[in-house]
């Protein structure tokens, strides 16, 4: 492996979101995946970012109750019209 082709972990961590959005060009994608094969630290980092995204998905807020009842009223108006 040629040294100038090798990504440092410091660079890899900045590519994670682009990688997950499938926005890396094929060459960078390959280098990224190659790096993960031998780097447990970056593999863990990627897994932690995936876990972070999943947890954020569970952190949603609920609709304010006053708005919810307004919307239910609107629904019932529509249904009976």
């Amino acid at each position: 492996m040629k040294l100038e082709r090798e990504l440092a972990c410091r660079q890899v961590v900045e590519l994670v979101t682009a990688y997950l959005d499938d926005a890396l060009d094929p060459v960078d994608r390959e280098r990224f995946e190659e790096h993960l094969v031998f780097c447990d630290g970056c593999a863990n980092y990627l897994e932690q970012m995936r876990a972070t995204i999943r947890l954020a998905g569970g952190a949603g807020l609920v609709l304010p109750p006053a708005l919810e009842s307004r919307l239910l009223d609107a629904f019932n108006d529509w249904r009976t019209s």
Partner: protein
Amino acid sequence: MVEERLSREDAELVAGLRAGDEAAFRALLQQYGPGLLRVAQMYVSSRAAAEDVVQEAWVGVLRGIDRFEGRSSLKTWLFRIVVNTAKTRGVRDARSVPFSSVEDEGGTVPPDRFFAESERFPGHWSVPPSSWAGVPDERLVADETLAVVRRAIGRLPEAQRTVITLRDVDGFDADEVCNALDLTETNQRVLLHRARARVRAALEEYLG
């Protein structure tokens, strides 16, 4: 009406709504209501105005549900109705942070986690993150963990907070968020990446 491109769940909600089923409407509100309210808030200056936009949009949804053909996902269709309603209501005036300018802030992981240039493995982990595979699921999904996530999101700068909320909390895709916030694809990604990195760091501090 053909809806082969809708998920089964979406197709059931649409059928329920057409039949006037209140449970279907409640399910839709629960799933998409908070996200759509946040989208509306991007466009108008007050919470009250955003709630009005949402109400008008949902009435539009109910009136249009018979014409919904399922060419896009239900969520994308709802998103467009809210954006269009908000746009016809007024010019976007709420934004206090110019989302379009994204400053270079350097790396998203503290430099002391990596070996310095003068050391033997420059740029490689000196303090690598550990695996969370051993963290029990009960701990991962516990209320305390979600509270850590919410707090970390709440402390983010506005632009980052908005982007991570729309993308990861509400689940809108990159195109929809770029569109709603007038962001380039690159800036959207930079903001999202910084936001995720900070939330991850907060989780790491909590989970180890």
